[in-house]
């Protein structure tokens, strides 16, 4: 789905969203009582220091407002911008700051909902979609840690071999279903139904602590993570 169609389906009562430099900003009306703040990264934009700081600034301003308006983060990005300047300026600090801003908004009572409708990868994925309190996706979304050709260079295996392995072991392969199985994505929404209903249903469920490891175990995509984390936590607490 394109952003315009997504916004129409999410906010039949109206929305005002502007786009500048690959970033989205605005508000939508879910129902007469509920206004939703909207931010986004669109058009496969690769966020660098400038984009990350602009997004974080807007999100922190929302976090400071006393109302409980939910925050929707639309994501169709590349990976982080790979450049000498971005690293010179401290991209790691800036992307971490963006993740902190989302965490702060959630903590301050604004539900943060990531909606992955296109691509996202690597550090950009961690600092945007994965840093939201809840992450949902639309069919056709394409999250990846690294594309298979780049992965082939690093692992020194051919793309053919990697493609074959991806069929049996989804834990390393790009794509929505593979990420879903790990527990990274709470729900895949149905584009044939009004997205507004699906957002309302999500907002009606209470915000919870990070349950992604349990979800990964239930779905069979990440069988060890929850057990290992719980065991280390238990041993550390017992040690005191």
């Amino acid at each position: 789905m394109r952003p315009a169609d997504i916004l129409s389906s999410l906010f039949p009562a109206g929305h005002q969203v502007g786009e500048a430099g690959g970033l989205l900003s605005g508000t939508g009306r879910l129902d007469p009582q509920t206004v939703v703040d909207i931010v986004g990264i669109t058009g496969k934009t690769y966020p660098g220091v400038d984009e990350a700081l602009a997004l974080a600034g807007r999100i922190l301003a929302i976090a400071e407002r006393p109302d409980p308006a939910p925050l929707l983060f639309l994501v169709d990005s590349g990976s982080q911008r790979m450049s000498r300047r971005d690293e010179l300026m401290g991209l790691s600090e800036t992307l971490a700051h963006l993740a902190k801003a989302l965490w702060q908004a959630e903590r301050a009572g604004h539900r943060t909902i990531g909606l992955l409708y296109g691509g996202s990868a690597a550090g950009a994925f961690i600092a945007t979609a994965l840093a939201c309190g809840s992450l949902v996706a639309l069919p056709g979304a394409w999250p990846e840690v690294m594309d298979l050709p780049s992965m082939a260079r690093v692992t020194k295996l051919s793309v053919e071999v990697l493609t074959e392995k991806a069929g049996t072991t989804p834990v390393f392969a790009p794509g929505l279903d593979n990420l879903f199985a790990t527990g990274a994505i709470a729900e895949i929404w149905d584009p044939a139904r009004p997205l507004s209903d699906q957002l309302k249903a999500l907002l009606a469920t209470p915000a919870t602590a990070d349950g992604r490891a349990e979800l990964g175990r239930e779905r069979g995509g990440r069988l060890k993570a929850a057990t290992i984390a719980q065991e280390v936590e238990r041993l550390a607490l017992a040690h005191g």
Partner: protein
Amino acid sequence: MTSPTPLPRSWYEESARGRLAHLLDAGSFTEFLGPERRELSPHLALFNLPRQFDDGIIVGAGALAGKPVLVAAQEGRFMGGAIGEVHGAKLTGLLHAARQLKRDVVILFDTGGVRLQEANAGELAISEIIRATLDARAEGVRMVGLLGGRAGCYGGGSLIAGCCSALVISEQGRLSVSGPEVIETNKGVEEFDSRDRALVWRTMGGKHRYLIGGVDLFVGDDVAAFRAGAVAALERPALLDPAALASEQGRLERRLARFGDATDGTEVWARLGLPHPAALPDLDTSAFLTLANTQRESADAAR
């Protein structure tokens, strides 16, 4: 008789276990889920790759100058310290305990980022580690990162470092999201020549990170110096709250306004007012600190 000064023990050259043994108070370390438990990566066998009994990270409890801490040390010699499912979950579990115990954490970073053979699990583990870090910091837990390992601190590892309350780095420490080879592969050798070691240090090395306020303490490549740095970092402000985040937003905006059009580290250092910026990489630790501390940007509590 005076006791002999101990010989420097290179942090860079040392293994993760060697670093921990000399970082913490003697005999204070207890490991959780150690190699005897053989919690191996369930994914590496598919790639016919060797596995390690601790999956490349050691987690446990110990003491630093008498103060109890939780610690995690990544082993850069195993898979480049890369973060997979088990590796990541060990750190997440430790951080969950840190929040409940309100116990400070010291992380010895040495990582290339996500372990690609289990990329999805590793990527999500980093997100879980970040959330657990921030939840602990909101309770006042200090999170100190030490950066001077062989593998550097790259990719998702650099984002975890960016969530720490204080960072200690050596000249050999490298902190960046995309590594030199990744930038060169994607953008060409004109954008970044990964074989130009001097360029790597000027762009993402310890001295540059210290000068722009990306880290808080700069130490020599010596385990005892890292220990002193960790002890000092545990005294720094740690509380993550709206005021700290607003300060960080302002700090990073000022950095971009002041240096955003600079094309090289030396240009940034010249704008800081440092004399002979081109000679900074050659200075030894004490000469560098004397000069840097007069002009550097400081993050203070804006982290």
